């Protein structure tokens, strides 16, 4: 019996708990900044799960892009546009109904996928962590087209943002 064999489930449940707790927090809190902080918990917890699965690159990207970049931008946007110091959600009934519907549909789809997949567990998964080199090779050879399409999409977004923010004159 190895230390890691009983430590790993503990850590997994820890991270999973953080993810779940924060996700529920996002839904329940009415303060946007707090919701953003809960989002940090979710994103960080998921990154932790990636680390646990030895997907180091994915975890680091998750942290750097979502937690370090997107989240900061969200909070930044909230601060720039706030009407009162404590921004609160006040969803109308129709909005709440729409959100519930979408949420349920999404949940159903995810549940279908999760139950539909045959989860075969490798004897000892990912003993050799996926290296950055492998990921890079895959992206630039096998998945070159989607990779480039994504980059073009981002470029379009950037140009659009610059257009929207340009001076009037």
């Amino acid at each position, binding site marked *: *019996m*190895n*230390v*890691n*064999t009983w*430590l790993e489930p503990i850590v997994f449940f820890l991270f999973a708990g953080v993810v779940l707790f924060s996700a529920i927090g996002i839904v329940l809190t009415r*303060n946007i*900044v*707090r919701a953003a*902080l809960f989002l*940090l918990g979710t994103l*960080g917890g998921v990154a932790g799960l990636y680390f646990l699965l030895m997907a*180091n*690159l994915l*975890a*680091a*990207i998750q*942290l*750097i892009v979502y*937690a*370090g*970049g997107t*989240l*900061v*931008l969200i*909070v*930044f946007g909230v*601060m*720039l546009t706030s009407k009162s*110091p*404590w921004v609160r959600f006040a969803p109308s009934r129709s909005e709440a109904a729409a959100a519930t519907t979408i949420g349920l549909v999404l949940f159903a789809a995810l549940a279908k996928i999760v139950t539909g997949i045959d989860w075969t567990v490798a004897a000892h998964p990912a003993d050799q*962590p996926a*290296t*950055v080199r492998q990921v890079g090779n895959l992206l630039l050879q096998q998945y070159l087209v989607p990779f480039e399409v994504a980059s073009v999409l981002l470029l379009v977004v950037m140009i659009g943002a610059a257009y929207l923010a340009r001076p009037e004159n």
Partner: protein
Amino acid sequence: MSQATIPWIEPVPEKRVAMRRKALLVLFGGGLTALIVGCVMLGVFRALPDQVGTIVFILAGVLPILGGLGLIPLGLLNGSVVLTTLGFAQIGIGALVGGLLKATPIDPLVVGVLLLVIGPIAAGLAMLTAAGVIVAFKQVVQLLLMRWTALILFCGGIVSIILLVWAHAFVFRYVAQLANDTTLNTSATTTFGGDLTIAELSTRFSGNWRPVAFVLWPLQFGLIRDLIAMGGVIGFISIIPLYTIWWERKVAGRIQSRLGPMRVGGWHGWAQSFADGMKLICKEDFVPPEGDGTLFRLAPYLAFVPAICAFIALPFATTYVFRDLDVALLFILAMLGIEVLGVIIAGWASNNKWSVYGAMREACQMVSYEIPMGMALLVPVMTAGALRLTDIAKLQQDGFGSWLAWNNPFCLIAFFCYYTASLASCKRAPFDLPESESELVAGFHTEYSGFRWSLFFFAEYAAMFAVSGLAVILFLGAWYGPLPLSWAPAGNDIASAVVRGLLFDGPILFILKCGLLLYVQIWIRWTLPRIRIDQVLYACIQVLLPLTMLVVLGSTFWLLFDNSAHPAFESFAKVVRGLLSLVGVVISIAIAGFIIFGFVNRRRLVGTLAIEHFPGS
């Protein structure tokens, strides 16, 4: 002089004497008792090796439970929360230890020696030392006030920290070797896993050294080693800010023709930061009543914890790394990015307009400077063809000329781009807009005080060290000296180890290089005015970003041609590399000459006071 009485402090020497006596009693009594208990237990264990299990079970399991059962009614009767809690804690500990001993076939000898012999002896020695200090207080103070004591203490502290680090690495390596040693009989496994039992370890130590096996036994577990190493890392990160702050104040003082801290601790006020820390802890703990209290309390930790986490992946030398991640670079950048969130939340939760300004500036500054910073870091990564920091470092072990900064012209430009961007990402001058005191009062930490405020500073200085460390690893030859590693003495003796550690390879060189970059950060801060926010963003988006893009592009082409397929270009690249190294040598010599010139021509005070010229003064 007459006895001056301050009305709000009653001078009661009797009370103080009583307190001293009480403390002495507790320390002496406790220390002696613990020492005796430890020695007696050792004797008991040696005398009755067969009964060890029973003795340990009774002493470590049953006795605490009994004591707890006795304490709880006592605490309840006296209404003392402390006693009651203590009682419950004792019961808990007793139950845990007893349960562990009974339920698992764990070696009771290990638990017994760790809990009942080594623990009491260590505690006893510590308490006796404290008692001795109280007794010899005056003599100790006399000793501390002696001329060279402070300097010796300071230098001794540094040497002992280095020794400690070295020793712990040595021990870890030794234990790891033992685990793989085939000469030991490693057929048995202990309850918690691991390959070594006490008995096996003991065979390595003869006679009186056998107890060492008990200390080494836990170290075979990675978790324990990690915990100890983590403690070391956190300790080191706590010491970095303390001394960087002290050093910054000294350097600033010299730059401004002042002296800087001179009092606390004796030699150049080396203990100033400790005194400040104590002061900060004692300060009022203010939470703005109109702010978001929860987030306000949380924010310092959000800034502090990621800054520490960055050190998880930051190697100090090839083996001095907590986790040698293959994505270490990305991980450190991510952690520095998350640190910003703490700052933003702090500014937001303070409900102070200046704080919000600081937070907004931090957000837009950080988000924009992360891009040129990452782009500039791509250049050495591409040149090295690796993302693991230790791999990149390994490329630079062939002396000054092999450092990546002089590898090609683009690397050198990338180094300066990175350094500029790193100043901005650590909110250091001239990019210290989030806390610019002349515009925003104190920016995001306007409302913070005491310990929480100091956490922000710890985070800032830790981040400064982390970005300097990245610069050193990626551009300035990591932990290798300017001489090729192949020249290093290869012997296993202490002398060649010292020479290797000081001149060729190892964490000391790394810390020295980081210190040099930190010094440049300090130097810039006390020389330059602050940039305006639009100029900050202009410098990022219109200067640094295109520049780093060009550099990445250029370096790509350079790497494309700089190989054996293009012999002409390869030889050209060699010449360029040589020239650039020469530039590097010249810069280094210039800086050294600058320092020497400054030291030789140092003056304490410029001129004398005019008033001394006048009669009667």
